[in-house]
């Protein structure tokens, strides 16, 4: 059988929509917001064509709720939004985590706080993606830097989501969302698709929140005797509220975190570029990693041995990976389109200060800025 690669010229948002459909999404609920709207628009066109459902809800709270409802019905479902809408989704995101319901939320970041810079890029939601809802909640956050990565990580987002039965956030930005560039679509037969594990127990024995060693419970489609309860409260393995049972509460919350720890290796994605001998390690993600890659080349031309560690999985934070690559580096640099967010985690893991490069004015950090900042450090050394 011959495999067909397909070279396309696509916008990031478009690539996300196409990848989602290939990943098996059959439900999209959303509410328009720049710079994420194209994803909804594509889905409005495509969902009914592939037998799925697109619905524009009354707001983002309803959108994520409908997505979770559809996923509870057993279907892969997603929504896409930007800052203000992402904030509104947080309560129900917490709900999805406590009831082990998979779904994918795309946040195409723009400048904030509030409506801020509605059409310009930023990376200001990195910490929010991890900590946005109340209470302790586990989450996975993936972050693409190119349209190709947007495509690939969207599929991975669904795979991880189904694997661990948890919401996964695809943290894109206005640069990646709107830029058009070359994408090589793999032959569909080569795309790995993960579906949630379905129980093989009969209804009488099925416990919807009982999990094996990986912490992930098996799913059961409603009907045919599987009539289980789901609650937003802390619950026992059968799904019933157990809000005064400290033991059950402890087990549940720790299981939710455990399932991510269990699969941590599998869900940690990153790329490196010229790190073998680097004195300077740039840790970057999203659109900023693009500039960082250029900067690495420019620095090397100028005689500074720089390398790039591009994080694609931002959360759970790949601390060991960062630590490992940072070891041999004299200087660690973290450029971000925010006031300094992921740099805190980097510093915590490498137990020393990093050079921060921050920009919050709606413009990308350019390769030259990174180069200059690093040269500056070396000139003082």
């Amino acid at each position, binding site marked *: 059988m011959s495999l067909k690669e397909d070279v396309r010229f696509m916008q990031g948002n478009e690539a996300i929509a196409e990848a989602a459909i290939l990943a098996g999404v059959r439900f999209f609920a959303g509410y328009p917001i720049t710079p994420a709207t194209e994803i909804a628009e594509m889905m409005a066109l495509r969902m009914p064509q592939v037998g799925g459902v697109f619905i524009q809800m009354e707001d983002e709270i309803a959108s994520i*709720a409908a997505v979770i409802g559809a996923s509870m019905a057993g279907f892969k479902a997603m929504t896409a939004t930007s800052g203000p809408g992402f904030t509104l989704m947080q309560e129900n995101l917490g709900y999805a985590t406590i009831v082990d319901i998979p779904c994918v939320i795309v946040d195409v970041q723009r400048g904030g706080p509030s409506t801020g810079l509605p059409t310009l890029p930023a990376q200001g939601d990195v910490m929010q993606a991890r900590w946005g809802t109340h209470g302790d909640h586990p989450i996975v956050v993936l972050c693409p830097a190119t349209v190709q990565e947007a495509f690939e990580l969207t599929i991975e987002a669904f795979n991880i989501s189904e694997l661990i039965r948890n919401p996964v956030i695809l943290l894109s930005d206005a640069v990646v969302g709107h830029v058009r560039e070359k994408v090589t679509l793999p032959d569909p037969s080569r795309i790995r698709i993960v579906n949630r594990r379905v129980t093989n127990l009969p209804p009488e024995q099925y416990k919807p929140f009982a999990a094996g060693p990986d912490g992930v419970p098996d799913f059961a489609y409603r009907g045919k005797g599987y009539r289980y309860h789901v609650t937003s409260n802390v619950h026992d393995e059968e799904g019933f509220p157990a809000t005064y049972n400290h033991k059950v509460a402890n087990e549940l919350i720790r299981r939710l975190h455990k399932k991510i720890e269990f699969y941590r290796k599998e869900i940690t994605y990153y790329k490196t570029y010229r790190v073998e001998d680097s004195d300077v390690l740039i840790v970057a993600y999203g659109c900023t990693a693009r500039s960082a890659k250029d900067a690495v080349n420019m620095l090397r031309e100028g005689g500074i041995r720089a390398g790039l560690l591009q994080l694609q999985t931002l959360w759970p934070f790949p601390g060991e990976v960062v630590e490992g690559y940072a070891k041999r580096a004299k200087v660690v640099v973290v450029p971000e389109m925010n006031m300094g967010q992921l740099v805190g985690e980097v510093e915590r893991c490498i137990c020393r200060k990093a050079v921060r490069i921050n920009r919050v004015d709606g413009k990308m950090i350019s390769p030259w800025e990174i180069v200059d900042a690093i040269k500056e450090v070396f000139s003082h050394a």
Partner: protein
Amino acid sequence: MLDIKKYLRLSKLPHIWCPGCGNGSVVRALIMAVDKLGLSKDEIVLFTGIGCSARTNVIVDFNTIQTTHGRTLAFATGFKLMRPDMKVIVITGDGDGAAIGGNHLIHAARRNIDITTILINNSIYGMTGGQYSPLSPQGTYATTAPYGNIEPSFDICKLVEAAGATFIARSTVYHIQLTADLIAKAIAHKGFSFIEVVSQCPVGYGRRNRMRTPYEMLMWQKEHAVLVQQAQRYSLEEMKDKFLIGELFVNKEKREYTELYEELRRKLAEGGEG
């Protein structure tokens, strides 16, 4: 008489509600309706939000999903769109459904999606201990209305009708058989159906509003409810402190949402433009 236990999760009984709380009776009425329609427990999904009313689905042996405060109809919409074969029922409260959840209520009504919503109106936020709700009558007392509530209340049936629902009814816990009959009609109706059930919260509401016993509260319901068929007998003046019960509005013309969606997909599959 119907064997209600067949539909209950006996291990979850006694339920957690206060003595005399109307919620148990609403669940009974729902079961009576389901039994009358001959539905199987498997084909029903009962969604709730947060509040005492939300605990209703812990005790019934249907598919049961309790969601976040006020958002139930949005969850249910997602579910129903993917499982149009199932009967989706939502039970909500006057806070859950009319305060924080008001927007989802009117939008679900507008879409006319085939969901049956039962709003248990006990005129109070029961679970949080007795604060006024948008359905608490003006002048009544609550922990957050220590001087009497100055806020006018919604006529929630009128609101949901104006929003576009195609079946609207009101009943009370006192009129339990009527409630059951109306719920049965609502479930059978294709489109968004809405039933307000006036209920009693002796602990959060009755205590503060000179109704000392659940019985008094039930009698209040009896005395203030007027069957819609008999409304003409009353003068406007007489109707002032009364409310109508029964089937208030039905529209069989307006198309149902999942049907329209299915039609769109069919047309596309046939190569049309929808």
